[in-house]
């Protein structure tokens, strides 16, 4: 278990540029599933046939991470960037970035003694990215408008915690790969025909999953996510969204959708029966691919299970390894033998 998480989070892939992630997943699951397809939106759909082919379950995790694109090349050889997905400009300042995974870059920071308005947040309009070029001509040879920019962060583990970028949603991809491994290594079959959809472009508006679902025609879906913790100690627990270490996060409602009650309750019951620690998502802001699935075809009912991650959508997020394991156990149990 957790064989792929490190590689997955170290790879770069903003929305629409998920190709490296996809290649990595493909090469690791190719001989373990019954069928692999890709669609026009770039979704990677892997099927493992079940004991009962009368129903189709779709598991969904998105491959893309939040990041940036080069949107301007300045006369002085620096770059302007725009966020792809929600990245607050406050987490960008002074960071190390990578352009197209090759060129290292840093974000400007006004020298502290010159910073008069300390409350002011530097917006993307004035953020400049330095990558060692001294003028526009030189920069234009190596870097182009639209190039992908990601946080330059490397995965590491410390005791029971892991730190990386892009847990949202490589953690979901990683759990799906672990489950594919489980079936392969144990020569076991899921209960229903199970479609593992590694989705594209979630962060820019849930754009990928709809076309995949239209192809699959699933009876129901389970969306796996890395979700926000917001468990800052200066806030009282009633203001937290989730708490790392408290187990998989189960969602009854989020932005744009109240989740299907039967599926939600089935997930809760399964977690209780397994005797694992779990928690509810206590904030309803932010959506997942489930909101798109509900608006697709005949309205695909879905559940959402997430691993809580502190500081998501930033260069460094923190995840508890026990939460990962418990989430894996829960999802596995649902796929292996929970009738819907």
């Amino acid at each position, binding site marked *: 278990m957790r064989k792929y998480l490190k590689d997955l989070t170290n790879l770069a892939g903003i929305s629409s540029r998920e190709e490296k992630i996809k290649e990595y997943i493909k090469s690791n699951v190719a001989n373990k599933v019954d069928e692999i397809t890709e669609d026009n939106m770039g979704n990677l759909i892997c099927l493992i046939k079940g004991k009962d082919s009368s129903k189709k379950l779709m598991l969904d995790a998105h491959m893309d991470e939040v990041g940036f694109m080069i949107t301007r090349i300045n006369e002085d050889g620096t770059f302007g960037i725009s966020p792809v997905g929600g990245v607050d400009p406050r987490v960008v300042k002074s960071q190390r970035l990578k352009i197209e995974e090759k060129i290292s870059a840093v974000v400007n920071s006004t020298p502290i003694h010159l910073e008069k308005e300390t409350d002011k947040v530097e917006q993307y309009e004035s953020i400049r990215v330095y990558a060692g070029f001294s003028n526009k001509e030189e920069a234009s040879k190596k870097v182009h408008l639209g190039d992908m920019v990601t946080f330059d962060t490397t995965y590491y583990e410390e005791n029971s915690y892991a730190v990386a970028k892009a847990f949202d949603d490589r953690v979901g991809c990683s759990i799906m790969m672990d489950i594919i491994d489980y079936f392969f290594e144990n020569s076991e079959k899921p209960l229903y025909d199970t479609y593992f959809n590694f989705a594209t472009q979630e962060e820019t508006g849930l754009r990928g999953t709809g076309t995949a679902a239209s192809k699959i025609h699933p009876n129901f879906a389970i969306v796996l996510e890395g979700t926000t913790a917001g468990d800052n100690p200066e806030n009282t627990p009633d203001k937290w969204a989730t708490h790392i270490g408290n187990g998989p996060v189960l969602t009854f409602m989020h932005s744009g959708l109240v989740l299907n009650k039967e599926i939600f309750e089935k997930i809760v019951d399964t977690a209780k029966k397994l005797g694992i620690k779990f928690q509810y998502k206590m*904030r309803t802001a932010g959506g997942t691919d489930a909101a798109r699935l509900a608006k697709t075809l005949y309205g695909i009912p879905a559940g959402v299970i997430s691993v809580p991650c502190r500081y998501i959508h930033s260069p460094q997020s923190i995840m508890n390894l026990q939460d990962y394991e418990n989430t894996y156990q829960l999802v596995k149990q649902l796929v292996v033998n929970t009738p819907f």
Partner: protein
Amino acid sequence: MAKKLKELIKKITELYGPSGREDQVRDFIKEQIKDHVDDIKTDKLGNLIATKKGNSGKTILFDAHMDEIGVVVTHILDKGFLKVEQVGGQNPVNLIGSRLIFNGRIGVVGVEGESEKELKDNYKNLSLDNIFVDIGVSSKEEAEKIAPIGTFGTFAEGFVDYGNYCMSKAMDDRIGCAILIETIKNMKDNQHTVLFAFTVQEEVGLVGSFVSTFDYEVNRAIAIDVTDSLDTPKALKRMSMALGKGPCIKIKDNLSVSDREVVEWIKNAALANNIPYQFEVLTFGGTNAAGYQRTKSGIPSGTISIPTRYIHSPHEMLSYSDVENTVKLLNTLSKTNF
């Protein structure tokens, strides 16, 4: 106003049915219409779709959403007070002084504040973060039994009959549901096949309307919903909708521009049958028409709105005559060519 219709409005608005928990409303509607339609079914999302067959070869759809706005329990504090988040567009100001109902249990809302200044500031900047719900218990354990995390609540305010006007919680959009029920019961000699879609989860993102037509080919779709009435003191000057002046034919709102031919069709049907109507340009808001426009290859859509005061508050007020005229108008449309 027929006494029966008043009773229907009372019953259907007093039902509990926040987004995603429309079961009671759906059961009630099914019971009301099942003997009057040719077909009735519930889809995977929970939309209830009834069919009345016609001979024109064309299919029109009338939509009303079953869900109402509400709150959902997200945290239970030590002494059994609840923290809630909104389900649909909820102005916290409306929660203060209102009764809420969770699993049949009434709750009231209090405001946090550990100093007079903080309390004053919190009243000025009300948000779901600085208010709490009291359901009359003394411990966390007791609260967890009655309203565990994930329990949905709604306003508890009931129906008031003013003679020409009436008022209740959840007129948005149970009045649309009542109008469709009444239309079904009165519908005779419809030329077009008419689908009646009672949809789910409109308030959280027009969810139901995106999929309710999955099994059908629909030529025109019309959402029946409420719109703001601007006939109160110092109301927004840029719009003119008023109670009692007839159903509003929507030209546009923030989420959709009504199909021009659909607008003309509705207007001409109203004119030909002496049904009063108003035009509506709403500078905010949106209805399920936006969902139908984006479904399949795009269904030409529009909205007929019932002018309503104090939308999304526990006291939504409207005029019976607008309701009756809308029922007439929908019946007329079922036999108006396009």
